[in-house]
Protein backbone atom coordinates (compact mmCIF):
# COMPACT_ATOMS: atom_id res chain seq x y z
CA UNK A 1 0.00 0.00 0.00
CA UNK A 2 2.80 2.37 0.89
CA UNK A 3 4.44 1.62 -2.42
CA UNK A 4 1.22 2.36 -4.24
CA UNK A 5 0.87 5.70 -2.42
CA UNK A 6 4.47 6.56 -3.14
CA UNK A 7 3.87 5.99 -6.83
CA UNK A 8 0.58 7.86 -6.63
CA UNK A 9 2.16 10.99 -5.17
CA UNK A 10 5.16 10.68 -7.44
CA UNK A 11 2.77 10.62 -10.38
CA UNK A 12 0.82 13.54 -9.00
CA UNK A 13 4.04 15.53 -8.70
CA UNK A 14 5.12 14.82 -12.27
CA UNK A 15 1.58 15.35 -13.46
CA UNK A 16 1.42 18.75 -11.77
CA UNK A 17 4.47 19.90 -13.67
CA UNK A 18 3.12 18.53 -16.96
CA UNK A 19 -0.14 20.32 -16.25
CA UNK A 20 1.60 23.63 -15.57
CA UNK A 21 3.39 23.43 -18.92
CA UNK A 22 0.42 21.97 -20.80
CA UNK A 23 -1.69 24.97 -19.83
CA UNK A 24 0.54 27.20 -21.95
CA UNK A 25 0.14 24.97 -25.00
CA UNK A 26 -3.58 24.66 -24.61
CA UNK A 27 -4.33 28.34 -23.93
CA UNK A 28 -2.29 29.51 -26.92
CA UNK A 29 -3.89 26.87 -29.11
CA UNK A 30 -7.34 27.86 -27.87
CA UNK A 31 -6.78 31.43 -28.96
CA UNK A 32 -4.70 31.32 -32.14
CA UNK A 33 -4.71 27.63 -33.06
CA UNK A 34 -0.95 27.48 -33.00
CA UNK A 35 1.24 24.81 -31.42
CA UNK A 36 3.83 26.97 -29.73
CA UNK A 37 6.85 24.70 -30.09
CA UNK A 38 9.03 27.21 -28.27
CA UNK A 39 6.99 26.77 -25.10
CA UNK A 40 9.21 24.02 -23.66
CA UNK A 41 12.19 26.35 -24.05
CA UNK A 42 10.42 29.00 -22.00
CA UNK A 43 10.18 26.44 -19.21
CA UNK A 44 13.87 25.66 -19.56
CA UNK A 45 14.73 29.37 -19.46
CA UNK A 46 12.64 29.64 -16.30
CA UNK A 47 14.75 26.93 -14.67
CA UNK A 48 18.03 28.58 -15.71
CA UNK A 49 16.85 31.95 -14.46
CA UNK A 50 16.04 30.41 -11.12
CA UNK A 51 19.50 28.84 -11.01
CA UNK A 52 21.12 32.25 -11.45
CA UNK A 53 18.79 33.92 -8.96
CA UNK A 54 19.45 31.17 -6.44
CA UNK A 55 23.19 31.56 -6.91
CA UNK A 56 23.10 35.30 -6.35
CA UNK A 57 20.74 35.02 -3.40
CA UNK A 58 22.79 32.43 -1.59
CA UNK A 59 25.85 34.65 -1.99
CA UNK A 60 23.76 37.35 -0.31
CA UNK A 61 23.08 34.87 2.49
CA UNK A 62 19.29 34.72 2.22
CA UNK A 63 17.47 31.79 3.78
CA UNK A 64 16.08 28.93 1.74
CA UNK A 65 12.42 29.95 1.71
CA UNK A 66 13.15 33.51 0.57
CA UNK A 67 15.47 32.19 -2.13
CA UNK A 68 12.73 29.84 -3.36
CA UNK A 69 10.12 32.58 -3.45
CA UNK A 70 12.44 35.07 -5.13
CA UNK A 71 13.58 32.48 -7.66
CA UNK A 72 9.99 31.63 -8.51
CA UNK A 73 8.86 35.24 -8.87
CA UNK A 74 11.85 36.46 -10.86
CA UNK A 75 11.90 33.49 -13.22
CA UNK A 76 8.15 33.79 -13.79
CA UNK A 77 8.57 37.42 -14.78
CA UNK A 78 11.63 36.74 -16.88
CA UNK A 79 10.03 33.84 -18.74
CA UNK A 80 6.85 35.86 -19.23
CA UNK A 81 8.96 38.53 -20.90
CA UNK A 82 10.48 35.85 -23.14
CA UNK A 83 7.07 34.43 -24.01
CA UNK A 84 5.75 37.89 -24.82
CA UNK A 85 8.75 38.67 -27.01
CA UNK A 86 8.66 35.32 -28.82
CA UNK A 87 5.06 35.98 -29.79
CA UNK A 88 5.81 39.50 -31.01
CA UNK A 89 8.86 38.42 -33.03
CA UNK A 90 7.95 34.99 -34.33
CA UNK A 91 4.15 34.78 -34.53
CA UNK A 92 2.53 38.20 -34.73
CA UNK A 93 4.04 39.12 -38.11
CA UNK A 94 2.63 35.84 -39.45
CA UNK A 95 -0.89 36.31 -38.10
CA UNK A 96 -2.43 36.29 -41.57
CA UNK A 97 0.02 33.91 -43.23
CA UNK A 98 -0.85 30.30 -44.16
CA UNK A 99 -1.06 28.07 -41.09
CA UNK A 100 2.19 26.26 -41.75
CA UNK A 101 4.30 29.44 -41.54
CA UNK A 102 3.88 30.21 -37.83
CA UNK A 103 4.41 26.52 -37.09
CA UNK A 104 7.77 26.58 -38.84
CA UNK A 105 8.56 29.84 -37.12
CA UNK A 106 7.76 28.18 -33.78
CA UNK A 107 10.17 25.31 -34.47
CA UNK A 108 12.82 27.84 -35.48
CA UNK A 109 12.30 29.77 -32.28
CA UNK A 110 12.61 26.59 -30.25
CA UNK A 111 15.92 25.66 -31.89
CA UNK A 112 17.19 29.19 -31.49
CA UNK A 113 16.40 29.37 -27.77
CA UNK A 114 17.94 25.95 -27.10
CA UNK A 115 21.15 26.86 -28.81
CA UNK A 116 21.24 30.27 -27.24
CA UNK A 117 21.18 28.70 -23.77
CA UNK A 118 23.60 26.02 -24.91
CA UNK A 119 26.11 28.68 -25.91
CA UNK A 120 25.44 31.00 -22.99
CA UNK A 121 25.62 28.19 -20.43
CA UNK A 122 26.95 24.72 -21.16
CA UNK A 123 25.86 21.52 -22.81
CA UNK A 124 26.42 19.51 -19.61
CA UNK A 125 23.94 18.96 -16.88
CA UNK A 126 24.45 21.57 -14.16
CA UNK A 127 23.48 20.89 -10.56
CA UNK A 128 20.45 22.77 -9.32
CA UNK A 129 20.29 23.53 -5.59
CA UNK A 130 17.46 22.04 -3.60
CA UNK A 131 15.43 25.13 -2.79
CA UNK A 132 12.59 23.38 -1.05
CA UNK A 133 13.31 22.77 2.64
CA UNK A 134 12.68 19.42 4.35
CA UNK A 135 9.73 19.92 6.66
CA UNK A 136 9.83 18.14 10.00
CA UNK A 137 6.13 17.36 9.96
CA UNK A 138 6.63 15.38 6.75
CA UNK A 139 9.05 12.93 8.39
CA UNK A 140 6.47 10.28 9.36
CA UNK A 141 5.29 10.05 5.75
CA UNK A 142 8.61 10.78 4.08
CA UNK A 143 8.74 7.29 2.53
CA UNK A 144 5.50 8.07 0.70
CA UNK A 145 5.82 11.73 -0.18
CA UNK A 146 8.79 14.07 0.24
CA UNK A 147 8.59 17.72 1.23
CA UNK A 148 9.39 18.95 -2.25
CA UNK A 149 6.62 16.80 -3.70
CA UNK A 150 4.18 18.29 -1.21
CA UNK A 151 5.27 21.81 -2.14
CA UNK A 152 4.99 21.09 -5.86
CA UNK A 153 1.49 19.67 -5.50
CA UNK A 154 0.25 22.48 -3.27
CA UNK A 155 1.80 25.31 -5.28
CA UNK A 156 0.43 23.86 -8.50
CA UNK A 157 -3.04 23.55 -6.99
CA UNK A 158 -2.92 27.18 -5.85
CA UNK A 159 -1.77 28.33 -9.30
CA UNK A 160 -4.64 26.42 -10.93
CA UNK A 161 -7.22 27.96 -8.62
CA UNK A 162 -5.89 31.47 -9.24
CA UNK A 163 -5.88 30.83 -13.00
CA UNK A 164 -9.47 29.57 -12.97
CA UNK A 165 -10.69 32.56 -11.00
CA UNK A 166 -8.78 34.89 -13.30
CA UNK A 167 -10.31 33.38 -16.43
CA UNK A 168 -13.78 33.16 -14.98
CA UNK A 169 -14.15 36.56 -13.41
CA UNK A 170 -11.71 39.19 -14.66
CA UNK A 171 -12.41 41.33 -17.66
CA UNK A 172 -9.35 40.19 -19.55
CA UNK A 173 -10.14 36.58 -18.58
CA UNK A 174 -13.58 36.91 -20.14
CA UNK A 175 -12.01 38.50 -23.20
CA UNK A 176 -9.70 35.49 -23.47
CA UNK A 177 -12.63 33.09 -23.42
CA UNK A 178 -14.58 35.22 -25.87
CA UNK A 179 -11.62 35.36 -28.26
CA UNK A 180 -11.17 31.60 -28.07
CA UNK A 181 -14.86 30.99 -28.79
CA UNK A 182 -15.35 33.53 -31.56
CA UNK A 183 -12.53 35.80 -32.55
CA UNK A 184 -14.54 37.91 -35.00
CA UNK A 185 -17.26 38.57 -32.46
CA UNK A 186 -14.70 39.41 -29.79
CA UNK A 187 -13.33 42.07 -32.16
CA UNK A 188 -16.87 43.37 -32.70
CA UNK A 189 -17.25 43.70 -28.93
CA UNK A 190 -14.20 45.95 -28.87
CA UNK A 191 -11.68 43.40 -27.58
CA UNK A 192 -8.11 44.22 -28.48
CA UNK A 193 -7.24 40.73 -29.66
CA UNK A 194 -3.52 41.47 -29.93
CA UNK A 195 -3.47 42.30 -26.25
CA UNK A 196 -5.43 39.15 -25.38
CA UNK A 197 -2.89 37.08 -27.29
CA UNK A 198 -0.02 38.77 -25.44
CA UNK A 199 -1.64 38.13 -22.07
CA UNK A 200 -2.14 34.49 -23.02
CA UNK A 201 1.55 34.08 -23.83
CA UNK A 202 2.55 35.88 -20.64
CA UNK A 203 0.38 33.69 -18.40
CA UNK A 204 1.36 30.46 -20.15
CA UNK A 205 5.06 31.32 -19.91
CA UNK A 206 4.87 32.28 -16.26
CA UNK A 207 3.17 28.98 -15.42
CA UNK A 208 5.80 27.04 -17.37
CA UNK A 209 8.55 28.87 -15.46
CA UNK A 210 6.87 28.00 -12.18
CA UNK A 211 6.90 24.36 -13.22
CA UNK A 212 10.54 24.70 -14.30
CA UNK A 213 11.76 26.06 -10.98
CA UNK A 214 9.83 23.53 -8.91
CA UNK A 215 10.90 20.46 -10.83
CA UNK A 216 14.52 21.57 -11.20
CA UNK A 217 14.74 21.96 -7.46
CA UNK A 218 13.13 18.54 -7.00
CA UNK A 219 15.34 16.70 -9.47
CA UNK A 220 18.52 18.64 -8.79
CA UNK A 221 19.98 19.14 -12.25
CA UNK A 222 19.16 20.94 -15.50
CA UNK A 223 20.56 21.40 -18.99
CA UNK A 224 19.56 23.21 -22.17
CA UNK A 225 17.62 20.19 -23.43
CA UNK A 226 15.11 19.74 -20.58
CA UNK A 227 12.62 22.01 -22.31
CA UNK A 228 12.43 19.74 -25.31
CA UNK A 229 11.65 16.60 -23.31
CA UNK A 230 9.23 18.28 -20.91
CA UNK A 231 7.69 20.17 -23.81
CA UNK A 232 6.88 16.97 -25.68
CA UNK A 233 5.43 15.37 -22.58
CA UNK A 234 3.33 18.42 -21.71
CA UNK A 235 2.17 18.72 -25.29
CA UNK A 236 1.12 15.07 -25.09
CA UNK A 237 -0.76 15.91 -21.90
CA UNK A 238 -2.52 18.81 -23.62
CA UNK A 239 -3.59 16.62 -26.55
CA UNK A 240 -4.60 13.84 -24.18
CA UNK A 241 -6.87 16.17 -22.24
CA UNK A 242 -8.19 17.88 -25.38
CA UNK A 243 -6.11 20.70 -26.78
CA UNK A 244 -7.76 24.05 -26.22
CA UNK A 245 -9.43 22.90 -23.02
CA UNK A 246 -7.97 24.26 -19.77
CA UNK A 247 -9.39 21.59 -17.44
CA UNK A 248 -8.32 19.12 -20.11
CA UNK A 249 -4.68 20.22 -19.82
CA UNK A 250 -4.73 19.69 -16.07
CA UNK A 251 -6.43 16.32 -16.33
CA UNK A 252 -4.16 15.27 -19.20
CA UNK A 253 -1.10 16.22 -17.17
CA UNK A 254 -2.21 14.22 -14.16
CA UNK A 255 -3.22 11.16 -16.18
CA UNK A 256 0.13 11.22 -17.94
CA UNK A 257 2.02 11.66 -14.66
CA UNK A 258 0.26 8.71 -13.05
CA UNK A 259 0.67 6.49 -16.09
CA UNK A 260 4.41 7.10 -16.13
CA UNK A 261 4.77 6.69 -12.40
CA UNK A 262 2.83 3.43 -12.15
CA UNK A 263 4.38 2.01 -15.29
CA UNK A 264 7.83 2.76 -13.94
CA UNK A 265 7.02 1.42 -10.51
CA UNK A 266 5.21 -1.79 -11.41
CA UNK A 267 6.69 -2.67 -14.77
CA UNK A 268 10.01 -1.13 -15.68
CA UNK A 269 11.46 2.33 -15.91
CA UNK A 270 12.67 1.49 -19.40
CA UNK A 271 9.11 1.60 -20.68
CA UNK A 272 8.01 4.87 -19.10
CA UNK A 273 7.69 6.72 -22.39
CA UNK A 274 6.24 3.74 -24.21
CA UNK A 275 3.35 3.63 -21.77
CA UNK A 276 2.82 7.35 -21.99
CA UNK A 277 2.54 7.33 -25.75
CA UNK A 278 0.49 4.11 -25.84
CA UNK A 279 -1.99 5.84 -23.57
CA UNK A 280 -2.07 8.79 -25.95
CA UNK A 281 -2.72 6.55 -28.94
CA UNK A 282 -5.45 4.61 -27.16
CA UNK A 283 -7.27 7.72 -26.00
CA UNK A 284 -7.03 9.35 -29.39
CA UNK A 285 -8.52 6.26 -31.01
CA UNK A 286 -11.56 6.34 -28.76
CA UNK A 287 -11.80 10.10 -28.21
CA UNK A 288 -10.06 11.84 -31.12
CA UNK A 289 -10.56 15.26 -29.55
CA UNK A 290 -8.99 14.20 -26.24
CA UNK A 291 -10.62 13.41 -22.91
CA UNK A 292 -12.35 16.76 -22.45
CA UNK A 293 -11.97 18.08 -26.00
CA UNK A 294 -14.90 19.11 -28.12
CA UNK A 295 -15.31 17.67 -31.55
CA UNK A 296 -15.70 21.03 -33.23
CA UNK A 297 -17.16 21.37 -36.64
CA UNK A 298 -14.68 23.13 -38.88
CA UNK A 299 -14.94 26.88 -38.40
CA UNK A 300 -16.23 28.77 -41.42
Amino acid at each position, binding site marked *: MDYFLELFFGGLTRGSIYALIALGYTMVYGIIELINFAHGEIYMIGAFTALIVAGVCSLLGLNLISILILAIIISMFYSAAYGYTVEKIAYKPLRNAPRLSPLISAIGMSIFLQNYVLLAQTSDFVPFPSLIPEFEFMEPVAHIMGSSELVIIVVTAIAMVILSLFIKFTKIG*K*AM*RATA*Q*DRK*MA*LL*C*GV*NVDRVISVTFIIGSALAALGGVLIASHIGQINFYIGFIAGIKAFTAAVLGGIGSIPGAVLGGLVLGWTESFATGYVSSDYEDVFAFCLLVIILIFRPAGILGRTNTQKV
Partner: protein
Amino acid sequence: MLELKGVCTFYGKIQALHEVSLSVQEGEIVTLIGANGAGKTTTLMSICGIVPAKKGEIWFQGEPIHKLSPDQIVAKGIIQVPEGRLIFPRMTVMENLDMGAYLRKDKAEIKRDLDYIFDLFPILAERKNQLGGTLSGGEQQMLAISRALMARPKVLLLDEPSLGLAPLVIKQIFKIIEKINKQGTTIFLVEQNAHQALKIAHKGYVMENGRIVMEDSAANLLTNEDVKKAYLGL
Protein backbone atom coordinates in the same frame (compact mmCIF):
# COMPACT_ATOMS: atom_id res chain seq x y z
CA MET B 1 -23.46 60.65 -39.61
CA LEU B 2 -21.95 57.56 -41.29
CA GLU B 3 -20.67 57.87 -44.81
CA LEU B 4 -18.89 55.53 -47.23
CA LYS B 5 -17.09 57.15 -50.17
CA GLY B 6 -15.95 54.90 -53.02
CA VAL B 7 -15.15 51.92 -50.81
CA CYS B 8 -13.41 48.97 -52.52
CA THR B 9 -12.85 45.81 -50.49
CA PHE B 10 -11.01 42.65 -51.48
CA TYR B 11 -10.77 39.08 -50.27
CA GLY B 12 -7.29 38.26 -51.47
CA LYS B 13 -7.41 39.06 -55.17
CA ILE B 14 -11.19 38.91 -55.41
CA GLN B 15 -12.89 42.28 -55.28
CA ALA B 16 -16.11 42.11 -53.24
CA LEU B 17 -17.01 45.81 -53.12
CA HIS B 18 -16.70 48.19 -56.06
CA GLU B 19 -16.75 51.92 -55.25
CA VAL B 20 -19.51 51.63 -52.68
CA SER B 21 -20.81 55.01 -51.55
CA LEU B 22 -23.67 55.48 -49.14
CA SER B 23 -24.67 57.63 -46.22
CA VAL B 24 -26.74 57.23 -43.09
CA GLN B 25 -28.18 60.31 -41.39
CA GLU B 26 -28.55 60.54 -37.64
CA GLY B 27 -31.84 59.14 -36.34
CA GLU B 28 -32.68 57.27 -39.54
CA ILE B 29 -33.22 53.63 -40.35
CA VAL B 30 -31.37 52.96 -43.58
CA THR B 31 -31.58 49.57 -45.22
CA LEU B 32 -29.29 47.81 -47.65
CA ILE B 33 -30.95 45.07 -49.67
CA GLY B 34 -29.54 42.68 -52.23
CA ALA B 35 -29.32 39.05 -53.26
CA ASN B 36 -26.99 36.41 -51.82
CA GLY B 37 -23.37 37.27 -52.36
CA ALA B 38 -24.09 40.89 -53.30
CA GLY B 39 -21.61 42.16 -50.72
CA LYS B 40 -23.88 43.32 -47.91
CA THR B 41 -22.03 41.55 -45.13
CA THR B 42 -18.74 42.70 -46.59
CA THR B 43 -19.98 46.29 -46.45
CA LEU B 44 -20.66 45.96 -42.72
CA MET B 45 -17.34 44.22 -42.10
CA SER B 46 -15.53 47.04 -43.89
CA ILE B 47 -17.29 49.65 -41.76
CA CYS B 48 -16.23 47.77 -38.61
CA GLY B 49 -12.64 47.33 -39.74
CA ILE B 50 -12.77 43.52 -39.75
CA VAL B 51 -12.18 43.40 -43.52
CA PRO B 52 -10.66 46.85 -44.05
CA ALA B 53 -11.39 48.77 -47.23
CA LYS B 54 -8.46 48.82 -49.63
CA LYS B 55 -9.58 52.01 -51.31
CA GLY B 56 -12.03 54.73 -50.43
CA GLU B 57 -12.98 56.42 -47.20
CA ILE B 58 -15.38 55.80 -44.34
CA TRP B 59 -16.39 58.75 -42.18
CA PHE B 60 -18.28 58.78 -38.91
CA GLN B 61 -19.41 61.97 -37.16
CA GLY B 62 -16.98 64.06 -39.14
CA GLU B 63 -13.95 61.80 -38.63
CA PRO B 64 -12.32 59.28 -40.96
CA ILE B 65 -12.47 55.79 -39.42
CA HIS B 66 -11.21 53.55 -42.22
CA LYS B 67 -7.69 53.44 -40.75
CA LEU B 68 -8.83 52.55 -37.23
CA SER B 69 -8.67 49.09 -35.67
CA PRO B 70 -11.92 47.22 -34.90
CA ASP B 71 -11.78 48.00 -31.17
CA GLN B 72 -11.27 51.71 -31.88
CA ILE B 73 -14.26 51.67 -34.20
CA VAL B 74 -16.39 49.98 -31.54
CA ALA B 75 -15.24 52.67 -29.09
CA LYS B 76 -16.69 55.29 -31.46
CA GLY B 77 -20.13 53.74 -30.99
CA ILE B 78 -20.43 51.74 -34.21
CA ILE B 79 -21.82 48.40 -33.09
CA GLN B 80 -22.66 45.44 -35.28
CA VAL B 81 -25.03 42.51 -34.81
CA PRO B 82 -23.34 40.17 -37.27
CA GLU B 83 -24.83 37.67 -39.65
CA GLY B 84 -25.40 34.37 -37.83
CA ARG B 85 -25.51 36.19 -34.47
CA LEU B 86 -22.16 34.85 -33.29
CA ILE B 87 -23.24 34.23 -29.72
CA PHE B 88 -20.34 33.08 -27.53
CA PRO B 89 -21.58 29.50 -27.15
CA ARG B 90 -19.85 28.54 -23.92
CA MET B 91 -20.53 31.76 -22.10
CA THR B 92 -23.74 32.37 -20.20
CA VAL B 93 -26.37 34.85 -21.38
CA MET B 94 -25.13 37.20 -18.69
CA GLU B 95 -21.50 36.88 -19.78
CA ASN B 96 -22.50 37.48 -23.39
CA LEU B 97 -24.18 40.71 -22.29
CA ASP B 98 -21.07 41.64 -20.28
CA MET B 99 -19.02 41.25 -23.43
CA GLY B 100 -21.30 43.76 -25.14
CA ALA B 101 -20.38 46.32 -22.49
CA TYR B 102 -16.70 45.39 -22.76
CA LEU B 103 -15.38 48.89 -23.39
CA ARG B 104 -17.65 50.65 -20.92
CA LYS B 105 -16.66 51.62 -17.40
CA ASP B 106 -19.84 53.33 -16.14
CA LYS B 107 -21.01 50.52 -13.85
CA ALA B 108 -24.23 52.18 -12.70
CA GLU B 109 -25.32 52.96 -16.26
CA ILE B 110 -24.49 49.43 -17.38
CA LYS B 111 -26.78 48.14 -14.66
CA ARG B 112 -29.54 50.45 -15.91
CA ASP B 113 -29.13 49.26 -19.50
CA LEU B 114 -29.25 45.67 -18.29
CA ASP B 115 -32.56 46.31 -16.55
CA TYR B 116 -33.85 47.94 -19.72
CA ILE B 117 -32.85 44.92 -21.79
CA PHE B 118 -34.41 42.44 -19.40
CA ASP B 119 -37.53 44.56 -19.64
CA LEU B 120 -37.39 44.46 -23.43
CA PHE B 121 -36.67 40.71 -23.56
CA PRO B 122 -37.97 39.08 -20.36
CA ILE B 123 -36.96 35.68 -21.72
CA LEU B 124 -33.29 36.67 -21.43
CA ALA B 125 -33.74 37.49 -17.75
CA GLU B 126 -35.14 34.00 -17.26
CA ARG B 127 -32.21 32.46 -19.12
CA LYS B 128 -29.49 34.60 -17.49
CA ASN B 129 -27.34 31.69 -16.44
CA GLN B 130 -27.91 29.45 -19.43
CA LEU B 131 -25.09 28.93 -21.92
CA GLY B 132 -25.48 31.00 -25.09
CA GLY B 133 -25.06 27.99 -27.33
CA THR B 134 -28.11 26.30 -25.86
CA LEU B 135 -30.56 29.11 -26.71
CA SER B 136 -33.04 28.79 -29.56
CA GLY B 137 -32.47 30.75 -32.77
CA GLY B 138 -34.94 33.46 -31.84
CA GLU B 139 -33.51 33.79 -28.35
CA GLN B 140 -30.02 33.99 -29.80
CA GLN B 141 -31.08 36.83 -32.07
CA MET B 142 -32.57 38.67 -29.11
CA LEU B 143 -29.38 38.09 -27.17
CA ALA B 144 -27.28 39.31 -30.10
CA ILE B 145 -29.29 42.53 -30.34
CA SER B 146 -29.20 42.96 -26.57
CA ARG B 147 -25.45 42.41 -26.46
CA ALA B 148 -25.07 45.16 -29.05
CA LEU B 149 -27.35 47.48 -27.08
CA MET B 150 -25.16 46.95 -24.02
CA ALA B 151 -22.47 48.87 -25.90
CA ARG B 152 -24.78 51.92 -26.13
CA PRO B 153 -24.48 52.15 -29.93
CA LYS B 154 -24.64 55.47 -31.72
CA VAL B 155 -25.27 53.54 -34.89
CA LEU B 156 -26.41 49.94 -34.84
CA LEU B 157 -25.50 47.76 -37.83
CA LEU B 158 -27.78 44.75 -38.20
CA ASP B 159 -26.95 41.93 -40.61
CA GLU B 160 -30.04 39.92 -41.59
CA PRO B 161 -31.64 39.82 -38.16
CA SER B 162 -34.64 37.92 -39.56
CA LEU B 163 -32.61 35.06 -41.03
CA GLY B 164 -33.95 31.65 -40.11
CA LEU B 165 -36.66 32.86 -37.76
CA ALA B 166 -40.39 32.10 -37.67
CA PRO B 167 -42.68 34.83 -39.07
CA LEU B 168 -44.01 35.72 -35.64
CA VAL B 169 -40.51 36.17 -34.21
CA ILE B 170 -39.49 38.20 -37.28
CA LYS B 171 -42.37 40.55 -36.62
CA GLN B 172 -41.29 40.91 -33.02
CA ILE B 173 -37.68 41.59 -33.99
CA PHE B 174 -38.68 44.29 -36.50
CA LYS B 175 -40.90 45.93 -33.88
CA ILE B 176 -37.97 46.03 -31.49
CA ILE B 177 -35.74 47.53 -34.18
CA GLU B 178 -38.26 50.31 -34.72
CA LYS B 179 -38.49 50.86 -30.99
CA ILE B 180 -34.73 51.10 -30.59
CA ASN B 181 -34.68 53.63 -33.42
CA LYS B 182 -37.47 55.72 -31.89
CA GLN B 183 -35.42 55.91 -28.72
CA GLY B 184 -32.67 57.65 -30.65
CA THR B 185 -30.34 54.99 -32.09
CA THR B 186 -29.47 55.29 -35.77
CA ILE B 187 -29.87 52.00 -37.61
CA PHE B 188 -28.24 50.54 -40.70
CA LEU B 189 -30.14 47.38 -41.56
CA VAL B 190 -28.97 44.74 -44.02
CA GLU B 191 -31.79 42.46 -45.12
CA GLN B 192 -32.89 39.96 -47.71
CA ASN B 193 -36.35 40.28 -46.29
CA ALA B 194 -36.70 43.44 -48.39
CA HIS B 195 -40.38 44.01 -47.83
CA GLN B 196 -40.19 44.12 -44.04
CA ALA B 197 -37.00 46.15 -44.10
CA LEU B 198 -38.32 48.78 -46.50
CA LYS B 199 -41.50 49.07 -44.46
CA ILE B 200 -39.67 50.29 -41.36
CA ALA B 201 -36.81 52.14 -43.12
CA HIS B 202 -36.55 55.77 -44.15
CA LYS B 203 -34.11 55.18 -46.96
CA GLY B 204 -32.87 52.18 -48.90
CA TYR B 205 -29.95 51.11 -51.05
CA VAL B 206 -29.95 48.19 -53.46
CA MET B 207 -26.70 46.29 -53.96
CA GLU B 208 -25.79 43.95 -56.83
CA ASN B 209 -22.44 42.27 -57.35
CA GLY B 210 -20.66 44.56 -54.96
CA ARG B 211 -22.08 47.76 -56.43
CA ILE B 212 -24.81 50.11 -55.25
CA VAL B 213 -27.29 50.12 -58.14
CA MET B 214 -30.18 52.07 -56.64
CA GLU B 215 -30.75 54.60 -53.88
CA ASP B 216 -34.09 56.10 -52.90
CA SER B 217 -36.53 56.68 -50.09
CA ALA B 218 -37.88 53.43 -48.71
CA ALA B 219 -41.41 54.36 -49.77
CA ASN B 220 -40.32 54.84 -53.39
CA LEU B 221 -38.34 51.60 -53.45
CA LEU B 222 -41.37 49.70 -52.17
CA THR B 223 -43.34 50.78 -55.22
CA ASN B 224 -40.47 50.64 -57.72
CA GLU B 225 -41.23 48.07 -60.42
CA ASP B 226 -37.67 46.72 -60.69
CA VAL B 227 -37.34 46.32 -56.95
CA LYS B 228 -40.73 44.66 -56.76
CA LYS B 229 -39.74 42.14 -59.37
CA ALA B 230 -36.27 41.37 -58.07
CA TYR B 231 -36.63 41.59 -54.31
CA LEU B 232 -40.25 41.68 -53.24
CA GLY B 233 -41.35 38.63 -55.16
CA LEU B 234 -44.37 40.42 -56.54
